[in-house]
């Protein structure tokens, strides 16, 4: 039976094509001049350049973290190009008609049509290709509601005060090694601002695509939800199939002011490398949200790609009665390694957090959940519930759980539940006896295992996530 599973898992990566787009790419290497050049190309204000340089100087003093349960060769940061943009973007297109058709075809191949009339109704998309944002849809409609949704490079020009006010407030530029690197060299990403009391009229979504060889992608996303506002945001990621490893070090900052709610969903399908572990994306990402009074931040992630993942979307529950949620599905196969989880930092009174993590390991992969729940001295009556389930497929993979619990308030309650199970021969046999092929059977069992998390995704994307898992498990081309 395990042979069948192995076959079922020997899938192809169907987003692995390379687009023939003429690009302007910096030579590999990183120093202060590179940062100056990058900042100049983007026409950034002086304070931004200073901020970047400070981050760079901090980064030089930091060392790469080694505590994660992952293993990869040392990265040569001088061997990476820190900027790549499609040439046709130089004079930024004013409408879709002016966008390089090859770019549009790229996104269509990925199943993300950027023509508004073809799009899922009610989803606005910002498409980021290598280092720059190529197009953002439905902007006018959003503007009517007062919602700002644009590339962060554009926000630096149009809304510098807003960016300056919040950038680095949740993830300080020296927070950790990869966050410092990102702060120094981030190229683009999305900026979202929801005014007071506004319920964002549609789902917002960003699709990240790494295309160029030997480039890193360092996007920075900043979402600010003013008092009493609501926004649901989704990011998706893919990359071509290449033999070299590529670095993706993003930073996402969420600010939820009093009574605001941010729902942030990720469907991550970066190229995971081939079956021998050659190539693939290093996904080293810092994501954190800050909740003021009665605010709520909910992270939902479906992680199927990347060679190595290092990612802990977190919530700082500063305001009283604020709520943090983390729902995660992380699937690893082949030689993939994932060390992912969350941090829930309870500071305010009666703060609540829920963590549901589903790890699925197959092939020779390693899948670790790492989570911190901290109850601060002021977290009167705070509560956390953690459920951490692992599913093993085959007998050569690993699942690990590293929960950290720190409580400085005796009235706080922390609950932790963990299970490990296997896709059993009995389950597969039952499915096959009822006419399902083994691939379908495995994907159905895995989907059932993930149900609690998929329920949290926006409807359109729940379907997408289910399909992605199916493709990840099936070996069929898409």
């Amino acid at each position, binding site marked *: *039976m395990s042979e069948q599973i192995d076959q079922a898992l020997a899938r192809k990566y169907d987003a692995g094509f390379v687009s023939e787009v003429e690009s302007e790419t910096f030579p590999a290497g990183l120093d202060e001049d590179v940062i100056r050049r990058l900042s100049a190309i983007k026409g950034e204000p002086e304070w931004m350049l200073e901020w970047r340089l400070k981050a760079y100087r901090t980064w030089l003093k930091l060392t790469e973290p080694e505590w994660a349960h992952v293993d990869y060769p040392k990265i040569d940061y001088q061997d990476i190009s820190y900027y790549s943009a499609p040439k046709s973007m130089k004079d930024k297109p004013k409408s879709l008609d002016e966008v390089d058709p090859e770019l549009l075809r790229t996104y269509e191949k990925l199943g993300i049509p950027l023509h508004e009339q073809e799009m899922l109704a009610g989803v606005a998309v910002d498409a980021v290709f290598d280092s720059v944002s190529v197009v953002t849809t439905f902007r006018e409609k959003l503007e009517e509601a007062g919602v700002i949704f644009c590339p962060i490079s554009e926000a630096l020009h149009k809304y510098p005060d807003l960016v300056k006010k919040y950038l680095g407030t949740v993830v300080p530029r020296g927070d950790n090694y990869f966050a410092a690197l990102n702060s120094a060299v981030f190229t683009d990403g999305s900026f979202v601002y929801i005014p007071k009391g506004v319920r964002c009229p549609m789902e917002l979504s960003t699709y990240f695509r790494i295309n160029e060889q030997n480039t890193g992608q360092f996007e920075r996303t900043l979402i600010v939800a003013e008092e009493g506002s609501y926004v649901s945001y989704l990011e998706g990621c893919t990359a071509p199939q290449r033999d070299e490893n590529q670095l993706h070090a993003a930073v996402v900052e969420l600010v939820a002011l009093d009574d605001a709610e941010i729902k942030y969903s990720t469907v991550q399908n970066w190229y995971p490398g081939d079956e021998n572990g050659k190539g693939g994306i290093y996904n080293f990402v810092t994501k954190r949200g800050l909740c003021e009074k009665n605010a709520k931040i909910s992270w939902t992630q479906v992680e199927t790609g990347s060679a190595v993942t290092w990612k802990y979307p977190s919530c700082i529950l500063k305001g009283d009665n604020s709520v943090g949620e983390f729902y995660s599905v992380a699937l690893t196969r082949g030689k993939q390694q994932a060390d992912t989880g969350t941090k829930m930092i309870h500071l305010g009174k009666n703060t609540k957090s829920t963590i549901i993590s589903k790890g699925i390991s197959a092939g020779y992969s390693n899948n670790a959940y790492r989570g911190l729940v901290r109850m601060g001295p002021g977290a009167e009556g705070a509560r956390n519930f953690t459920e951490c389930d692992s599913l093993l497929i085959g007998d050569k993979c690993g699942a690990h759980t590293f929960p950290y619990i720190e409580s400085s308030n005796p009235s706080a309650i922390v609950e932790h539940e963990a299970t490990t199970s296997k896709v*059993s*021969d*009995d*389950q597969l*046999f*039952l*499915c*096959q*006896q*009822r*006419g*399902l*092929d*083994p691939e*379908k059977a495995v994907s*159905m*069992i895995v*989907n*059932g*295992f*993930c*149900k*609690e998390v998929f329920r949290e995704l926006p409807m359109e994307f729940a379907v997408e996530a289910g399909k992605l898992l199916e493709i990840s498990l099936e070996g069929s081309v898409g």
Partner: protein
Amino acid sequence: MLTIKDLHARVEEKTIIKGLNLEIKPGEVHAIMGPNGAGKSTLGYVLSGRDGYEVEQGEVTFKGANLLEMEVEERAQAGLFLAFQYPVEIPGVSNMEFMKESVNAMRKARGEDELSSAEFLKKAKEACKQVNLPLDFLKRGVNEGFSGGEKKRNEIMQLIMLEPKLAILDESDSGLDVDALQVVANGVNSQRDGERSFIVVTHYQRLLDFIEPDYVHILAQGKIVKSGGPELAKEVEASGYAWLGQADEGEEA
């Protein structure tokens, strides 16, 4: 429908079936009885192609095709159904989703269109009703938290929905009280249409009071040691399996 010739099969290193012959024609109900360890459940697993159950020699033809060359799901799609003695749970997958995938996989294999949601639901409701299961049963995870009796009824519900050519019931009576037994039997009997064949595997004669077989076979030490009509089951009830100690010796199946 099904012809088994000189079947030998083993589980791991142990040969369990040792020269079994059986011929089943369309519409017939064959009961297979025997003591524990006789190979009753093994027969069901071998016929449905379960991994780890290896055929050493012999032939099995199912509707004219070589059954032993087919994959598990191909056998199922060809119309071979096994009602499990101990149905396994699939957490998070609802009965409804599971059956919909299953019904449509079968239809696809036959070259038929998938059922629409409305058509499927109608069929599922009827099947539930026949085995006396409430409708919200469809929303629950496959066998998740089901009682023993519910699991058995659920198997029969699947049988009704999948309309197989040959159904093998592996001790569908074990652990059931008389009322539940009646429900299971009624479900099975409703599917007897003169075309569909059944192999009813059971330890006790009790089930055969409700599902009347055309033939009864006694399986002992891996082969059929005695065959007869329904009256043979009564004999077993009266005298148990102790006589097999002698009958097994030198008797050709």
